[in-house]
């Protein structure tokens, strides 16, 4: 157990290191992305343009030797542009299915809030169910299946904000943020000749990813920590500054994310630190801050942190 754990961990380490060659100073975002991948979750990247959202996905895809697809969402994009459609083959005299970009292993859904709800839901439903029905035929999506959606928070003109119920489908919501001065200088250094994303090699095969995904599910989660997760979730439901608390699906998400994070740290058991680390990323897009709180200048992150700090860390108190 120990040795296999060590081996798995070193694989993940290699993956993270590989991605970090591209994503300078974004270790947290990289790690969270890997956590989402490992726990078969999906990531919503919300940040201003140009901070490396696409680069993050590309570096992941290149490191993994997986099929990478990109969908640029525009207002006129149709659901069939995502899923693919049946086309009549006149030579064969049959309808044959042209798979859309959703049939990739890693799908980048760029600027997902720019397209119509109809198209959005086509993607989001497939994310949850991992299969897709086109023209009455249900088709399984590829495994592993990992969606990274990005959205731009500053533009509201002509955008369709994702409904809360849809946001729930994403395991994590990430922000990249601007790099620091040194990081940015280093970034210029690295990109002056050839872009590093073009240089990195795949460090993990598809099978290895699937293996890891299975492995993560077996991460030990003690009763204490389970209770801790549920306590945090429950507190969001009773919080006066939140109009909408976290759903049971959030509990599951937090558990999965915590397991993934523990695994990423090379542990085969979850400690409260993992939960604490994951909670803001898991919860922030699932909660609705009340208008009074927003008026007071409270953000969802500050409220989640407050909830975590008020929750007693589980201990065996003998």
């Amino acid at each position, binding site marked *: 157990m120990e040795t296999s754990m060590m081996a798995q961990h070193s694989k993940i380490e290699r993956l993270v290191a590989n991605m970090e060659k591209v994503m300078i100073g974004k270790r947290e975002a990289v790690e969270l992305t890997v956590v989402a991948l490992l726990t078969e979750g999906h990531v919503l990247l919300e940040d201003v343009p140009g901070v490396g959202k696409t680069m993050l996905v590309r570096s992941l895809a290149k490191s993994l030797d997986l099929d990478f697809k990109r969908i640029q969402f525009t207002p006129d994009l149709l659901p069939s542009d995502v899923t693919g459609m049946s086309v009549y083959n006149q030579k064969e005299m049959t309808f044959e299915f042209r798979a859309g970009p959703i049939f990739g292993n890693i799908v980048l859904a760029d600027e997902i809030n720019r397209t119509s709800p109809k198209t959005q839901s086509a993607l989001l439903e497939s994310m949850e169910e991992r299969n897709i029905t086109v023209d009455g035929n249900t088709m399984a999506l590829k495994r592993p299946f990992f969606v990274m959606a990005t959205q731009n928070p500053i533009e509201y003109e002509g955008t369709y904000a994702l409904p809360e119920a849809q946001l729930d489908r994403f395991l994590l919501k990430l922000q990249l943020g601007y790099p620091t001065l040194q990081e940015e200088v280093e970034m210029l250094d690295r990109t002056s000749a050839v872009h590093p994303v073009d240089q990195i090699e795949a460090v993990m095969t598809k099978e290895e990813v699937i293996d890891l995904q299975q492995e993560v599910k077996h991460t*030990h989660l*003690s009763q*204490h*920590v389970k209770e801790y997760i549920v306590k945090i979730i429950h507190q969001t439901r009773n919080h006066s500054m939140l109009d909408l608390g976290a759903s049971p699906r959030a509990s599951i998400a937090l558990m999965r994310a915590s397991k993934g994070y523990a695994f990423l740290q090379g542990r*085969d*058991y*979850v*400690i*409260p*630190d993992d939960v*604490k680390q994951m909670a803001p990323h898991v919860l922030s897009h699932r909660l609705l801050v009340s208008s009074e709180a927003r008026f007071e200048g409270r953000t969802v992150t500050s409220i989640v942190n407050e909830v*975590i*700090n*008020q*929750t*007693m*860390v589980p*201990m*065996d*108190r*003998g």
Partner: protein
Amino acid sequence: MRLNGNPAHPWMSLILYVGAMLLLFEWITPLEIVSDTGYVHLFYLFVAYCFLLTAIHMPVWLRSPLKLVGLLFIIHYLFFDVTFLSREWIGHLISDLQVNIELFSGQNWMQLTPLFRTLLFLILLWMLSYLLYYWFVIVKRPLSFIVFTFIYITVLDTFTDYSAIWPIIRSFVIGVSILGVSHLFKMAENERIRIQSFRVLMKWLAPLLIVIVVGTSIGYAAPKFDPQWPDPVPFLQGAAEEGFSGSGFQNQVQRIGYGENDEQLGGGFLADDTTVFYASARTSQYWKVETKDFYTGKGWERTVEGEFIEGAPGEVLALQPYDIDVERIPTESTIQMVEPGNLTKLPYRYGTTSFTDFPVKYNPETGEVNNLSGSPSDGYHIEVMRPNFPLNTLREARNLDWHVSDAYLQLPDSIPDRIHHLTQEIIEGEENPYDQAKAIEQFFTRDGYEYETEDVPVPYEEADFVDQFLFETKRGYCDHYSTSMVVMLRSADIPARWVKGFTGGELANQANVFDTEGMNTYEIQNNHAHSWVEAYFPEVGWVPFEPTVGFSNQSDFVTGEDTEDLLDDREETEDYEQDIPEPELDEGPEQEETEEEDENETAGASDFSGYTFVKWLVVIGLSLFVLWLIFRNRYRFLSYWKKNQLKRNPDQKTFVNAYGFLLKLLSNEGYRMKSGQTLREFATHVDRQMGNSDMSSLTSYYERAVYREEDLSNENDQIDRLWNKIVRNLIA
């Protein structure tokens, strides 16, 4: 410093060294009391000087001359007027040394000059200072010297006037400190621990100090048993006295029989049934020997010397002139001396008019009568005109026209005011001096003072003898009562003096010393030595009073016409009856009775008598202090317990428990876990403060135990080590 017997811990050596010096001081302190040594402070100085020089690092050729100069300077200061180290000075010294060396060789030890003796003593101190340095700092074997110090002090306490209560306490504190420190020393050496800073040293010493303080205070405040065996000193003294025929220990504070020196009253009164003399008399009457007039606050001295007058055998002496008012009854007595011991003067009765057997020299003022011819142990016959004091005249006497010396109203300046207040309280309402005197005489019996001959303290340095008796001890024997009454009479402006002599003695039925018809023979023993009071009343003279409880006034008082008065006065009625000899009057049985009572009472009371409120406060305070210490150090005690638990049971429950305890301990030390903080975050915080990673390591074990639910019994050693290390760091 040469105190580098242990280079790692110079502090320790210094403490030992200073302790040695303080112990040596305890040897010097009693000298002032038990010998004729004066200027004790100079010897302290010299010891300190020698210790200092021994401790300072300097060449030997410099150290010894420096000490010698110090020694000579002290000699100079004490004995020389001329310039220090001048030619004349050296000449004096050398000649003195020569004289003494001759005396020395002639073994005339007692004639050595003070200078020479001081010189020898200083040299002894010099040697001792080096010896102690060697014992305490070099070989670190202080125990024997400490034990010797205790023996020395206790022996002095037992056999001399030296009161060793505080010296014992001091020596205990010093001794235990020294032993504790030297032990600590050895432990540190064995464990190869370096105690670098004074702060760390204090941490080491704190428990020792607490033990000393608590032990000493409890020892001081706790009730103590009375001695479980009789005091050996009287026995030894008795034995010695036999050898020295009673004169050797006359100046001891313990009193036996009749003595000349009354400068220091108090202390036990020892029973001694040696017969002093036999007397034939019709009734039992007091035997007067002499009076004293000057009260020093501690005892009696004589300042009114009077004049000695010679009286031929049978001549009517002016020994006890009473005014014409005083009715006299003729009687007589014959005295046969047996073992007079210290008694060189002749005892006689009130109203004695003549000594028929030999010429005497007598002093009407002090009442002394000396035999002019023959040895004092001869027998003699006295003619007595026994006075009956007229009550009416006595009562009419007023505080006017005293025809007596002011010396009989003397009181020391140091006399506490409360004696005066008490006197005023007693005599309030009594109009005439006689009734006032009676009131004072009866005060002691009325107020429950106890007759006690053994457990009687000598007053402390500052204390007034009377004051201590009246207000503090409230127990004593004749000297206490008589002295107190004289002081109180004088305080009430009634002239009074202190009389010494013997009581009437015991009726001796077997001895046929005298063959006189119609007379009783009385045996007067050393036990019957007594003191009482005489007060002066104009137109009457010196009237005896008996304040001592258990004794009664044997003088006769008559009222003249008014017989009712006579019946009223119980005291006087009794006195009338005393023409019949009563065994009760004898000191022996009466004394025994009182003693028994005293014993019963003191047995019950001794545990708490003198066990004052303050001492209780000390005890309660200390208990609270100890409880507080325990509470304060509860984590320390608990940690030992948990440590052992952890060692014995390597299961998860114990570990979780011990970890929980550690968190409490940390919280007590100021590392409080914040709400919502995880163990890992907390451990990181603690480690950052402590400068290591022990807490994080231990926490990861805890995480494995609790969150992974793993069995860690294989790694118990590691856990144990980490836990102990953290706890040790926290508690240290």
